[in-house]
């Protein structure tokens, strides 16, 4: 039984470990032109309040409802998720110096899961790559520039898909919070559709903007 658990864990690590943050088909490239390079989230520094229609699939569970993102001060942002009937799933507080689960519905109130949500929302809302240590890569077929580096505590890759026009941000602090975010359907630079995925726990969040 212990062997079976070990093999299952190993298999899980292999499967999730194989999903690389680095997009496929890239080669290192030198670029001096940084216009159009995706070095920050489309939401970074742009919003006061955003309301999304949300569907969250975690393994075989599906939670739906509304996600409200609201700045309550210059340094504090609430990420609030409730179902349609109004019951709160979570209320997270993002601060410059940390992440506080103000409330989390008991079955979801697990440190590891909250850590994964932290990565999802910090990358989605605050991703901003520093100039130090960033590296540029070019897509072998389209020439599109992808940048890798660090944003806060995250190792990241970001760029624009030349096929769909969507912006992607891939980031992680460790193998379990490896996160892939895609922003699409832009109006005046603001995406109305966001998809967040974490393959380690089979999490997929689909956010559709209702108001900005």
């Amino acid at each position, binding site marked *: 039984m212990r062997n079976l658990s070990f093999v299952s864990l190993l298999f899980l690590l292999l499967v999730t470990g194989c999903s690389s943050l680095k997009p496929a088909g890239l080669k290192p490239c030198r670029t001096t032109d940084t216009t159009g390079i995706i070095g920050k989230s489309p939401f970074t520094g742009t919003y006061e309040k955003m309301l999304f229609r949300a569907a969250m699939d975690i393994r075989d569970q*599906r939670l*739906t409802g509304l996600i409200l993102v609201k700045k*309550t001060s210059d340094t504090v942002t609430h990420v609030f998720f409730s179902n*349609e009937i109004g019951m*709160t*799933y979570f209320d997270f507080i993002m601060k410059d110096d940390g992440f506080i689960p103000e409330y989390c519905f008991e079955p979801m109130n697990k440190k590891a899961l909250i850590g994964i949500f932290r990565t999802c929302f910090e990358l989605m809302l605050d991703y901003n790559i520093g100039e130090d240590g960033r590296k540029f890569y070019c897509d072998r077929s389209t020439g599109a520039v992808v940048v890798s580096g660090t944003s806060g505590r995250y190792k990241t890759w970001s760029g624009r898909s030349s096929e769909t026009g969507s912006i992607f941000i891939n980031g992680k602090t460790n193998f379990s919070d490896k996160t892939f975010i895609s922003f699409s359907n832009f109006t005046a630079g603001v995406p109305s559709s966001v998809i967040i995925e974490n393959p380690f726990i089979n999490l997929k969040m689909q956010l559709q903007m209702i108001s900005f």
Partner: protein
Amino acid sequence: MKISLSIIVFCLLSIPGAFSQTTPLDAASIARVKKGVEEAALRTSTIVAGFTQEKEMSILEEKMRSTGRFYFKKDKQLRWEYTKPYSYIIIINNDRITIKDEQKTNSFDTRSNKVFGEINKIIVGSIRGTLLNDPQNFRTSYYNSSAAWIVKLVPLSAALKSSLKEITLHFDKKDFSVNRVEMTENTGDKTVIIFTDKKFNQPVANEKFILR
């Protein structure tokens, strides 16, 4: 002149307080309300109503409002059909919950989803009157207001206590049906559901409680 103005101001200020005032019920009145609710539940085989739902959150100045249609059929069939701001249907058919959002239809057992399991108990329990006789799970207190009999329920079970602080039910003084459900969370955030245009014992097809 000063005195009469003071009296007028005092009277004007007192009016809203007088209307919203609630007084605790004595034992005889509690028995009367319980009996009324039980009898109403016995003579009600179906309910069709409109509803308005408002969510009050400490981090948001304005309320989040949604509206829709509500269907109940004895013993445990319920259909919540949200029409605004977006379409969403929740069907409770005995212990099975089916949720249809814009993308997916999801079905699960109420025992596997604690949130909806508890909400199911509250809504069905308040309509059937069983919630008032559940001392293991709720501590109840009864009040009288000019508009309704008010019953406050404080959850005692650990599962419900972790998310809900209090449930307040407003029963119509004439027919003892539920007019208003208030769910106050531990964070102080509140969801208020108000039922309107209630129709009792009209035929409701079983198909209303099936989603494919």
